Each structure stands twice: as C-alpha cells, then as structure tokens.
C-alpha cells in the first residue's frame, strides 16, 4: 500500500505545483481550456464507470445464474461489445444510430459506448468470480434450505465481489485511459484540449505534462480505492490478531 500512496501524493503535489507554475507564467493562457477538458474527462469517466460496473454485474450474474435464454442474451451482449473496437462502437452510437432515428448527445454516446464496452469485459470478471466461489458454499446453502435467490444475494455474490475487485479496478483504469477516444464524438476532453492548445501555443512539454499527470492521478486514485476496498472486504479472511 505504501508505494502507491507515496506515488499518489507525489503526483497530486506535482500536478498542483504544475498548475501553480503555469498560473504564474504566461502559460495561464491555455490553462482554462485544459481545465475544461479535464472536467469533461472526469465527467465521462465517472458516468462510464457507473455504467460499466452496473453492466458488469448484471451481465456477469446473468451469465452465471440465469435461465438459458437469459444466459444466451448476456453471452451475445458480451460477444458483441467485446469483439468490437471501442472507437467503432462510439462511431456507431454517434453517427450510425441517427440513421435509424436514434439521436443522442455526444456525452450520452460516449458514456454508453465506453460503459457497455468495458461492461462486457467486466461481465467476464464477475462471472469468473461468481464461479470461483467454492461449490461447497452452494451445497451448504441448499442443505440450509435457502432459496436460490437468497443463496445468490447473501452467500455467493458477497463472496464474489471481493474476488472481482482487482480485475474491475484494472479495467476501471483502462477505462479512464480509453476516455481519450471521446473526441471521436466531438467531445473536448483533456487529451483533445491538449492537442488543440499545443497547436495554438506550442508549449508541448508543459501542456502534456499536465495531461499525463491528470491521467496518472485518476489512475492512482482508482488503484488506491481498489486496494482499500479489497482490504476492507477481506478483513475477515485474515486470522484474528489479538
């Protein structure tokens, strides 16, 4: 835990220092644009992560526990959204669907595309976790005459959630990096804002230093949060210390 924490603090400090230096120099001319981009990146990330987690759990649990038609639907969803490139999915949502009368704002298209694409990957993580809960847990639940619903919600899923944390936090970090593609649907995120500002002002080093630090901070934040959640949920698996 110590190294990510130090790296996190270091990165935040560096980011703020960078902002400070920029504010006191002529660089402040491009800062507002970068900040607006950062806000878009964070917005897309937060909303997509919510959809990603929801999709991962719904589709993963459907694949593990569903009746045959439910399992197949979930499997088809996973195959479609995993087998296609995110960029192409974004184009579909933003440019192709309007041809069928489905028009959505760029933010919605971005969040749907990213959330569903990563949700399909996450579904496999969730399914794997659910299936890795030992068979004896199911058998004990049956012997205690629990319904399948109670067995799922009270015994299997709580144990599976802990197992999903490392996999899902890795995917979350990948998701944040993938938000750089949203300029394809006309959103100006921090990456696109950097490119624009660089073309205007030619302050390549400063601009991209700020950009890279933003991504790094977000990733550290997830890594840190994931580690904390994992520790928190697996306390009971450690022998009692006192």
């Amino acid at each position, binding site marked *: 835990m110590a190294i990510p924490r130090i790296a996190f603090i270091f990165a935040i400090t560096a980011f703020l220092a960078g902002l400070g230096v920029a504010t006191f120099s002529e660089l402040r001319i491009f800062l507002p644009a970068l900040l607006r981009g950062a806000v878009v990146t964070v917005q897309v990330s937060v909303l997509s992560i919510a959809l990603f987690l929801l999709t991962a759990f719904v589709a993963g649990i459907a694949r593990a526990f569903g009746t045959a038609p439910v399992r197949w639907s979930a499997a088809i969803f996973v195959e479609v959204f995993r087998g296609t490139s995110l960029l192409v999915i974004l184009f579909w949502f933003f440019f192709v669907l309007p041809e069928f009368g489905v028009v959505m704002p760029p933010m919605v298209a971005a969040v749907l595309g990213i959330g569903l694409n990563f949700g399909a990957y996450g579904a496999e993580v969730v399914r794997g976790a659910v299936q890795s809960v030992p068979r004896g847990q199911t058998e004990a639940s049956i*012997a*205690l*005459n*629990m*319904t399948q619903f*109670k067995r799922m919600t009270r015994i299997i899923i709580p144990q599976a959630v802990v197992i999903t944390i490392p996999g899902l936090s890795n995917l979350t970090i990948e998701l944040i990096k993938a938000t750089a593609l949203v300029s394809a649907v006309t959103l100006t995120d921090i990456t696109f804002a950097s490119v624009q500002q660089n073309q205007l002002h030619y302050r390549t080093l400063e601009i991209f230093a700020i950009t890279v630090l933003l991504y790094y901070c977000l990733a550290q934040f997830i890594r840190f949060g994931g580690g904390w959640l994992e520790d928190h949920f697996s306390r*009971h*698996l450690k*022998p*009692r210390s006192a």
Partner: protein
Amino acid sequence: MSEPKIRFDKVLKAYGPLKVLEDLDFHVDASEVVTIIGPSGSGKTTVLRVLMTLEPIQGGVMYVDGEPLNMMMSDGQLVPASKAHVRRIRDKIGMVFQSFNLFPHMTALENCIEAPIHSKGMAKSKAIDESMDLLAMVGLADKRDHYPSQLSGGQQQRVAIARALAMRPEILLFDEPTSALDPEMVGEVLSVIRRLAESGDYTILLVTHQMGFARDVSDRVCFFDGGRMVEQGKPEALFGHPRNERLKQFLSKVLEAV
C-alpha cells in the same frame, strides 16, 4: 407397521454410464442412529448427497415420513417434485459436511442465524437466542463473533453442527465429519455428535471411518460396497460376526490400520 423416517425405494444414481447407487432399498426409523461404512467409492457420500437433494437421482423414490421427496403426488400419480415441494420436505433434513462449508464472510453467530432468518423467516432476536444456545451447547458461545478463518478445524465443525441444528431439522446427515480434522480435534467433534445421538431427538445418518465411534453410537451399521448395501446389522453383530466376505476384508483392513 409405522412409516420409517427415511425410506429409499429402488433408488438409482448414475453419473453417465457409472451406476453409483443401484436399486437401493434402505430405510432409517425415527430416532435411529445409522452408520454407513464401506470402502472408498462405494457410494456412502452419495447416499447422503441424494437425500440432501444436492444430486438428482435417475430412478426410484426417496420418502421422508412417508412423503415422497424427489417426487410428489398429483391426482393420485407420482410426478417429479416441484421446487416448493422439495423445500417443504427438505426442511426436515440438515447436513454436516466433511469440509465444514461455513460461510467465510460471516461470523460464527451469523452463520447460525442466516438460514433461520432468511430461509425460515424467523425473527432475528429469536434466531439469535436459539443460535446462542446452540453455540453454547457445542462449547463455542465465546467465539460468536469470530470468523471461520479465526477458528480451528474442530471449532469450525462444531459451528457447522450448530448451524445445521439452528434450522431445527429432524434428520441429521454427517459425511465423515472428522476426516478433515487434525487428530487432536476429532474428540471434541465426536463428543458433540455423541450427545446428539444419545438425545434421541434426531434421526441420524452418519458416514465415518471411525469404527470405534460407529460401534459406540450406532443402533445399526450398514456396509456398502459397489453402490449396494451388502450387509447391515447391530454394531456388535456386524463388527463381531461379519458374514460377507468383502466386509470381512474391509474390517480387517481398517482395524489393522488403527
């Protein structure tokens, strides 16, 4: 003649072409303590697992208190049982596993009250009262807030027994309850089972390799071989004067090993 507590009528259990139980006729009377012995792979565990409905059977009928378990009556005909029917009958049966199978994310007490609350719909305070009595009975009242990972094997198995009892079963199934334990912990678990056997409150079906214990607590011992019950009788008779050749071989092997 009164109905036996448990009755197997020509039960067939097969994994693909492998017949693990073949035309098994078998019964256990109310409050009877029956031990199943036999070589590895003879189908002992399978008898308990099919009765607990952990495995479907491919033929025959299992009865509890005269009511079919895997089937049900509909218009005077036996038809495959509905989930609700199975749940109603299964409520009378509890099982203790070789590998405990406690819920690792719950404390000892939470393990015990989980099913009474969420399966039987018992009030939480009542479930806690009853489960604390049971934990005290198995000598673990002070471990109520410990997680399974914080308990020894013997303690985990005693929690598992308390958890099964919390559902107020009439029938208790034990599948080699001490096989996964370090030798010094076997005694504490056997003494709990002995008390349950002697109380007369439960009909008990036990699979064990502890021949001395089987002889002590059983009303009847059944010897299984190759998916069939080849000999059964009072423990003194079965251990003292075995008739079947395979049983003689089996006994000389296990008694030698002790």
